[in-house]
């Protein structure tokens, strides 16, 4: 039975004073045993805690840090005074390993850095290597790579949407987006046989052409996917909780965003219309009709809006690519680069020699260097390769967009609440595999 309390009389406080400086009048309450107890008013001012800053550690195993990111925060109450990020827990030395691998052997490693954009990384690496070899891929291969890249953008943005919703406290869009993501993975599986680690490209072409009827599957996905975007849109865009937890957080002005090297949706949410697909095009992106969404406030909410719009724009590109996909060979006609068919390698002398040389030695680019950047879902992803004329690169450098974007987190979270750190961190869309490499 709940304790019943009744106000019976008023007593004079022993600690509090009223506006005139007289002892405050406080209610007297009878306890269960019948004695009267004065209820003291809470102190008018909270005790000053400003001197004691707190040290809080988040990660590296915290689920809201999207991997093995560790943030050490200095808190004043609940407000972040300083943020010291630590990365490197997933460092595997991809760039070092790449110096010991032939160009085609590096492609599996590109799957594993930004593993949400694996097929996009494959294409990007192959583009870089092809620049180094001085070849242009076939028309069909170009369009297939555009399809692959836009599909992987959709995958990455869907994972971002789902996990960010979880971080902020909405569960349902997570299920919707991951359901759709599975459908894209099914498409990729039908194409290259793998879902996550695709290794879909080769220097000079693709590992496989699309199977019969695959475009129908793509078209049906393109037709049905907008309903999911609309659903998430209805669920979130005008949702008071979502807006309250995202608007005005982690603001970067356009000048700051450029100076901090932000790229991708992070940069465009700040109002800078820089998209590698438009400004430094590759794979004939200049011939596709699509818009680049640009935000105005540079906060978490605008980053969300930009990514949602990019999903729709990716669908536009996919539709155009599916309609223009030409017939013809996928791989370049160059026996120095592309393996001969197995039947020829075992029956023709010349093909057998090419096969042997390609497998044992690997193709050799001329001396030179190339930096090829693509617009990955996270931003400007660059591959910088230096060749000394041997079949293995002297240097293979990944320019990781997540890494540079994350370096601005100390600035973005300053002055915000601890719970907003999670939302801001989610809005960067980091993949630790890419940051630590």
């Amino acid at each position: 039975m709940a304790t019943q309390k009744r106000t019976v009389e008023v007593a004079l406080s022993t600690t509090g004073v009223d506006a005139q400086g007289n002892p405050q009048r406080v209610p007297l309450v009878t306890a269960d045993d019948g004695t009267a107890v004065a209820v003291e008013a809470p102190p008018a001012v909270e005790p000053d805690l400003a001197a004691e800053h707190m040290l809080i550690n988040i990660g590296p195993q915290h689920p809201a840090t999207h991997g093995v990111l560790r943030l050490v925060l200095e808190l004043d109450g609940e407000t972040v005074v300083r943020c010291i990020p630590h990365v490197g827990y997933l460092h595997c030395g991809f760039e070092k390993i790449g110096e010991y691998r032939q160009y085609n052997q590096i492609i599996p490693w590109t799957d594993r850095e930004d593993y949400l954009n694996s097929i996009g990384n494959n294409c990007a690496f192959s583009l870089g290597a092809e620049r180094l070899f001085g070849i242009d891929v076939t028309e069909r291969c170009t369009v297939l790579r555009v399809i692959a890249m836009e599909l992987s953008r959709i995958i990455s943005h869907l994972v971002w949407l789902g996990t960010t919703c979880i971080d902020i406290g909405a569960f349902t869009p997570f299920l919707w987006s991951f359901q759709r993501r599975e459908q894209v993975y099914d498409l990729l599986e039908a194409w290259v046989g793998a879902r996550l680690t695709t290794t879909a490209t080769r220097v000079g072409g693709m590992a496989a052409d699309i199977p019969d009827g695959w475009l129908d599957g793509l078209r049906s996905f393109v037709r049905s996917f907008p309903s999911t975007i609309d659903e998430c849109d209805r669920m979130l865009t005008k949702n008071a909780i979502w807006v309250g937890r995202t608007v005005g957080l982690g603001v970067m002005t356009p000048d700051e965003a450029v100076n901090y090297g932000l790229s991708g949706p992070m940069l465009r949410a700040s109002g800078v219309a820089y998209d590698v697909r438009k400004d430094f095009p590759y794979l004939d992106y200049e011939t596709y009709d699509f818009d680049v969404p640009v935000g105005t406030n540079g906060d978490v909410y605008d980053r969300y809006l930009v990514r949602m719009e990019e999903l729709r724009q990716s669908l536009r590109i996919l539709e155009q690519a599916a309609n223009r996909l030409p017939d013809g060979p996928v791989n370049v006609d160059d026996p120095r680069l592309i393996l001969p068919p197995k039947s020829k390698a075992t029956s023709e002398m010349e093909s057998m020699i090419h096969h042997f040389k390609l497998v044992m030695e690997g193709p050799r680019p001329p001396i030179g260097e190339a930096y090829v950047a693509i617009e990955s879902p996270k931003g400007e992803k660059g591959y910088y390769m230096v060749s000394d004329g041997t079949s293995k690169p002297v240097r293979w450098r990944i320019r990781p967009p997540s890494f540079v974007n994350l370096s601005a987190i100390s600035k973005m979270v300053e002055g915000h609440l601890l719970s907003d750190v999670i939302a801001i961190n989610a809005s960067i869309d980091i993949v630790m595999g890419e940051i630590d490499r």
Partner: protein
Amino acid sequence: MTGPFEIQYAGSADQGAPVPVTPKQVPHRGGAANLSAAELQARFGAAVRRVEVVWGETTVIVAPEAVLDIIRWLHDDPSQRYDYLSDVTGVEFRDLELPIEVVWHLRSLPYRRFLRVKVQLTKNRPLEVPSVWSIYKSADWLERECYDMFGIRFVGHPDLRRILMWEQYREGFPLRKDFPLRGRFSRAEQLRQALAANPEARYSMEELSIADAFEDLPSDMRQRLRGGERTGE
């Protein structure tokens, strides 16, 4: 709430600029150089040692002592406006006699230009280049990574610590060519060090200086730290 949000594409500041196209049939060497290269040569003279165009990308090889001025000019000059630093990295060649290169990849977003600035450092002198952190904040982590992997010191960087490897890492600089693929220490030594590491020492001294965090540590650890033991990550 979608009010302030718009779909637009502003594009280049130079409205008369042609629409960029996918580069095709790029020659191995030669071809049109980035316009900024000639202007750099005219302005900085001998400090610009060489201009190369490889696979359509312009590389400017400059003197180490002039690189900060050159990059600052590229950033500030209204006719250049290289406002975006894409990447800072190093290159060491398999021929160990060749100098180590430090490479800056710069972009001018308004003029849609891409320029590679390079410095060659001979190995008989300390590997030092000026930091461009004062111009580009994005250089912060990129330079730290380059230092971590190559041991190149960026003079003027406010916080040049290891970033991917841990602070007590003693095996050297992993991307140097004299660093073996499997590390310098044996597996047994690596295991021994891992087991000997103090898992409680997770904070740096800088972090422990926040408020009373140091006083919250167990007393034996405080004594060890006072005795000169370093904390780890």
